[in-house]
């Protein structure tokens, strides 16, 4: 029973990270109807920036928030420079550019910081919470930070005018234009927020997986699984999907021989294909995937 509870809690902790990645994916999906295959690399790069800040002597939390700000600006810049000109381009162009971003970011990170793994500090420490052995301080911290982030986002979308405008843009861009919303900037804002959320995910998971240019690829895959499970156009679904996928991953890893431990990515693959084909709207989204 203790093992079970322990795994559920650990699953919730990584699930929070998946939830963040899924949320970032959903934000961009709602803005441009495409899946950002470079989301993980963007998060990885942000994490390196945080690491660099700390190398330069910044305290953890200063570096944390500075990184969020830089990532936000970079996300906006990527949209303005690279994606805005492609607004009416084909899906192929979008995919090509996502792949290009993936390759560029991954390689520039390796170029600047090389490909060896680095340790990344946890602000919460690694000892177990209240010495219970049930959950570590860092895992607790991950859950708490994710929840704070989610509450802030919820409040932003629910209670601010810009949040309302962004929701309107996601729902119906044409009508959003008719009421005078600068849709292009809402899209850019979506990119900025996605980049910032990804940065949080990267910084929180880095103490667990270590910092290196390929650290986010499998986490991105889980983020995709979470987004698909929750429904690609439902932010709430993305969050619930993230936590569920995290728990599923951990329980499978503990209780299913071989498969759970060694084939974690295959589990994500199976989830993605199964949900997309059987219930394309996910658990909470509306139907968008057109089927042949």
């Amino acid at each position, binding site marked *: 029973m203790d093992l079970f509870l322990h795994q559920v809690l650990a699953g919730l902790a990584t699930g929070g990270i998946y939830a963040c990645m899924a949320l970032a994916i959903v934000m961009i999906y709602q803005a441009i109807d495409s899946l950002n295959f470079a989301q993980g690399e963007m998060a990885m790069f942000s994490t390196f920036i945080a690491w660099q800040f700390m190398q330069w002597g910044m305290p953890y939390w200063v570096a944390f928030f500075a990184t969020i700000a830089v990532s936000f600006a970079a996300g906006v810049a990527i949209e303005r420079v690279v994606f805005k000109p492609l607004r009416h381009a084909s899906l192929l162009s979008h995919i090509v550019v996502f792949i290009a971003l993936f390759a560029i970011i991954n390689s520039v990170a390796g170029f600047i910081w090389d490909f060896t793994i680095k340790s990344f500090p946890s602000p919460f420490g690694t000892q177990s919470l209240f010495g219970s052995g049930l959950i570590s301080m860092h895992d607790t911290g991950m859950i708490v930070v994710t929840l704070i982030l989610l509450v802030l986002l919820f409040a932003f979308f629910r209670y601010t*005018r810009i949040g*309302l405008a962004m929701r*309107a843009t996601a*729902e*119906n861009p*044409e009508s959003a*234009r*008719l009421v*005078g*919303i600068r849709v292009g900037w809402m899209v850019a804002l979506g990119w900025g927020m996605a980049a910032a959320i990804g940065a949080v995910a990267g910084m929180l998971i880095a103490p667990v997986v270590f910092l290196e240019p390929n650290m986010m690829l499998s986490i991105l895959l889980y983020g995709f699984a979470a987004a698909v499970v929750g429904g690609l156009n439902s932010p709430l679904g993305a969050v619930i999907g993230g936590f569920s996928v995290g728990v599923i991953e951990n329980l499978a890893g503990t209780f299913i021989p071989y498969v759970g431990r060694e084939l974690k990515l295959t589990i994500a693959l199976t989830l993605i294909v199964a949900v997309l084909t059987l219930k394309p709207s996910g658990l909470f989204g509306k139907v968008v995937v057109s089927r042949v």
Partner: protein
Amino acid sequence: MTGPLLTVRGLNAFYGETQVLHGLDFEVAAGGITALLGANGAGKTSTLRALSGMIRATGEIVFNGLSIGGRATEEVARLGIAHVPEGRGTFSRMTVDENLQLGAMTRGDRAGIAADMERLYGFFPKLDQRRRQQAGTLSGGEQQMLAIARALMLRPRLMLLDEPSFGLAPMIVAEVFDILRKLNASDGMSMLLVEQNATAALDFADQAYLIETGNLVMGGTAADIGRDENVRRAYLGY
């Protein structure tokens, strides 16, 4: 009456390569109500869409002394042109309240916005009872009212109305036109109205134009147009 608020000269519009409007010339007077009449597919909706920058168009569009041809839709809206589109365009997953808030997105005066919302809820009591209801769950007629109310939240100088009577019961149509006429008189708000219901439109408007397959074939005061033999036979049915 003063000079025109909106002057359109040689307006062409396109869907891809297909041209659907061919050199339209027309005006909306400041404080005036102009009606566009025409059969299905004549190009009425396209005209409004061209004005709002929603489709590719060439020609001269002057609003309030400003050339607005080629501007993005949101910029046109920000100049004070509110467009009630064909098919309503409400945000169906948002509440009635949020839809009205969105209508005022270009404004910064919180107090004014709140006051306007109450005023519009006064005009449309049906909406007042459903403030927290999702717009998508409103009846068709209620959604039409919401679309009009949302456009009014912009405090527009010019309203582009694409078949505002669509889906409304005759009683309500009269009511909606009444409200619009009141706003026209009190706020000096000008309107460009597209209507299937030519009788109501001619009754409501002071100027009218007739479009056939993307060409203007007739224009004049609503009264003159209403008296025209051909118009009566083709559009008024008597």
